C-alpha cells in the first residue's frame, strides 16, 4: 500500500517508469471482408497514480484502446508496456490491471461479497486477508451491510460501486474504466464523479477513464487525450485542452467554441490585429508556429463565457464585434445568447445572472460583443 501512496506523489518523484505505455499501437478489425481501422498508431505514456482520460466521440476507438491495455484485444501493430514490462501477447488474466465494464458485468449468481472476493480468491490470497480486504473495500465504496445481496437486488449506483470495488480490491497497477457512469442518471452521475475522484485519491491507483462526456473528463482528469478517428488529437491537462485547443476538432468537441475568421490588418507586439466586418476589430496573441501575415485570413476561437454583451461599443483595447441577437435562452443562473455577426458567423455568449435581473438584450437587438485579447485563441489560416 505504501508503495502506491508514494507513486501518487508528484510525477517527477516516481516517474522512472510510466504505469502504462503504448508504443505505436494500432488495431484493425476484419468485418465482412473489410478492414476497419479502430486505432491508428497510438503513443501514450500514462504516469503512475495519474487520472488519465480518453475522451472522444462515439466510434473513435476509446474502448478498443482500453481493451488493448486490458489484454482482451491484441494490437495489430505496436507494443504495450505495463511498468516497463512488455505485455503484448499476454492474456488478460495474467495482466496486473483491472477493468470496470460499462455494463458492470457483475456475476449475477454471486453475492456482493463473492463478487468482490473473486479476484483475490483466484490469486489464492489467504482467507483472513480476503476477509479484511473485501470488508475494507466495501466500506470504501459505502456498501457495508449489503454483502449478501445479489447484484439484481441493488440500484444502478450500488451496482456501479460493486464493480468498482471488485476491481480495486485487487490493488491493480492500473484501473481501466469504460464509461463507468454512462448508465446512471445525471444527478447520480455527478455524485459518482466526486466519489470516484475521492477513491482514486485514497487508493492512489492509476485510472484510465474512457468517456465521451467532456464535462466529466474536464472535472476529473489530471490529463486528457482527446481522440478522433483512432488518433490522439491533443494530449494535455484539462486547462490546456480547454483554453488552447490544438485543432479545430478539439475546439469544437470540448465545450462550446466560437469560430471566427478575418483578414489580418497588421502584426505587432506579438499580436495580430484582425478587422472583422465593417467595424469589428479583434486582437489575437500569436504563437511561433502560426502562419500569420498581413493580408492573410486567420481563424480563431473565443469561449462563450469570456464574451461580454452590451449595447455600446466598448472602449480601450478590447476586441469588439457587432451583431444581432437571434436567440435568448434563460437558464436560471445564466443566460445564453446567440448572436449573428456581420460576416454571418454565429456567436454563442454565456452570461451569469449574478448581478442584474434584467436581460441585457432581447431578440432582434443590435449588440456589441467584447472580450479581452488574451481570450482570443488563434487556430490557423482560414480558407
Amino acid at each position: 500500500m505504501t508503495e502506491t501512496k508514494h507513486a501518487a506523489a508528484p510525477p517527477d518523484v516516481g516517474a522512472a517508469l510510466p504505469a502504462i505505455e503504448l508504443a505505436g499501437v494500432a488495431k484493425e478489425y476484419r468485418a465482412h471482408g473489410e478492414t476497419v481501422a479502430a486505432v491508428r498508431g497510438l503513443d501514450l505514456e500514462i504516469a503512475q497514480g495519474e487520472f488519465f482520460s480518453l475522451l472522444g466521440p462515439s466510434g473513435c476507438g476509446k474502448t478498443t484502446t482500453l481493451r488493448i491495455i486490458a489484454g482482451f484485444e491484441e494490437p495489430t501493430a505496436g507494443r504495450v508496456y505495463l511498468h516497463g514490462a512488455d505485455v503484448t501477447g499476454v492474456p488478460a488474466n495474467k495482466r496486473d490491471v483491472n477493468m470496470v465494464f460499462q455494463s458492470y458485468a457483475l456475476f449475477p449468481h454471486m453475492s456482493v461479497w463473492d463478487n468482490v472476493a473473486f479476484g483475490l480468491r483466484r490469486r489464492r490470497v489467504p482467507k483472513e486477508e480476503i476477509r479484511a480486504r473485501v470488508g475494507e473495500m466495501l466500506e470504501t465504496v459505502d456498501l457495508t451491510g449489503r454483502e449478501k445481496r445479489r447484484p439484481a437486488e441493488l440500484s444502478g449506483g450500488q451496482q456501479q460501486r460493486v464493480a468498482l470495488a471488485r476491481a480495486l480490491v485487487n490493488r491493480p497497477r492500473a484501473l481501466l474504466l469504460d464509461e463507468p457512469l454512462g448508465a446512471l442518471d445525471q444527478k447520480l452521475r455527478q455524485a459518482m464523479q466526486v466519489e470516484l475522484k475521492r477513491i482514486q485519491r485514497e487508493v492512489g491507483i492509476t485510472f484510465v477513464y474512457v468517456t465521451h462526456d467532456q464535462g466529466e473528463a474536464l472535472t476529473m482528469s489530471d490529463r486528457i487525450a482527446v481522440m478522433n478517428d483512432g488518433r490522439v488529437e491533443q494530449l494535455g491537462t484539462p486547462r490546456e485542452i480547454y483554453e488552447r485547443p490544438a485543432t479545430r476538432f478539439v475546439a469544437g468537441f470540448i465545450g462550446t467554441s466560437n469560430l471566427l475568421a478575418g483578414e489580418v490588418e497588421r502584426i505587432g507586439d506579438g499580436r495580430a490585429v484582425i478587422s472583422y466586418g465593417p467595424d469589428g476589430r479583434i486582437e489575437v496573441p500569436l504563437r511561433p508556429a502560426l502562419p500569420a501575415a498581413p493580408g492573410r485570413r486567420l481563424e480563431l476561437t473565443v469561449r462563450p463565457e469570456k464574451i461580454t454583451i452590451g449595447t455600446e461599443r466598448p472602449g480601450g483595447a478590447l476586441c469588439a464585434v457587432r451583431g444581432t441577437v437571434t436567440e435568448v435562452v434563460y437558464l436560471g443562473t445564466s443566460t445564453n445568447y446567440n448572436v449573428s455577426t456581420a460576416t454571418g458567423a454565429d456567436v454563442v455568449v454565456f452570461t451569469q445572472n449574478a448581478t442584474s435581473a434584467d436581460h441585457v438584450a432581447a431578440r432582434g437587438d443590435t449588440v456589441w460583443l467584447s472580450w479581452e485579447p488574451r481570450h482570443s485563441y488563434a487556430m490557423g489560416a482560414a480558407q
Partner: protein
Amino acid sequence: MTAPATSSPRAPRRRVRRRAVRSGRVLHLYTVLLIAWLLLPIAVMILFGFNDTHSKQNYRWEGFTLRWYRHLFDKRDLTAALVNSLTIALLSTAISTVIGTAAGLALGRHRFRGRGAANLVLFMAISCPEIVMGASLLSMFVTFNLPRGYPTILAAHVMFSIAFVAVTVRARVVGLDPSVEEAAQDLGAGPWTRFRLVTLPMIMPGVVSGALLAFVLSIDDFVITSFTSGATVTFPLWIYGSTRTGTPPQVNVMGTLICAVGVVVALVSARRNVRRLQADRDARGD
C-alpha cells in the same frame, strides 16, 4: 358543485369493477375446464392402478385394491423393460446434456465456419418426423450390419436429445452479456475456472431444462425405439406389445409413479423459484 364532481368518476369505476368480476368468473370457469380436460386421462390412469380386476383386461371398474402396488415388480419382463427405459433415459440424458451444452455454448457465443450448417442440422433433427428418422436409422444399422439392441437405442436417443439440449442452452447463451466472462478473465480466472464459476452457473437454467426435456423425450419414446431396439424391450415397447393380450394394472401403477416423480420435480423447482423471489423481495425491502 362538489357532489357531481365526486360521484361522476365513481359510477364508471363501479362499472369497471363489475366487468372485472365478470371476466374473473369467466377466467375461473375456463381454468376449471382446462384442468379437467388435462387431468381426466391422468385420473383414469391413476384410478385403474387401483382396480381390483381379475380378468386379463383392465377396462372395467371392479372395486378398489392396493394389490398392484404390492405386486408391482411381479411381472419380470415388465420390470426389465422399465429398468431398460430408466437406464437408457438417464444415460442418454447425461451424454446428450454434455454434448448439447457444449454445442449450444459454441453456437450461441462464437462465429465459426460451419456454424450455419450446425444450426440447420439441429433444426432438422427437431423437425424431422420421428417415424421417418426411425426407419432411416434402421436401414442405416442394417446397411452397416450393426446388431440392433441396447447400444443402438441409446445412440438414437442421444442423437435426438442433443438437438433439444443445444437449442435450449443456445437460447440462454444468446441472452448473456459476454463481458461477464471477460470480467472473470480480467480478475485472473483461466478458461476452465471461468467456465466452472461463471459460465456454467449462468447457463444452468438452460442446461437443466434441456436435460429434463431429454429425459422426458427418452423415457417414453416409442417410434424411434421400435426401429432400433432389436430384441431389447423398453417400457413403451412392452406396453404396446401387451395391448393385444391385455395390459396389466402394474403398467398404470408404474405410469402413476413416473408421473408423481415428475410432479415432485416440478413442485421443488417452483418452490425454489418462489423462495428466491421471496428472498429478493426481503432483501430489497429494508
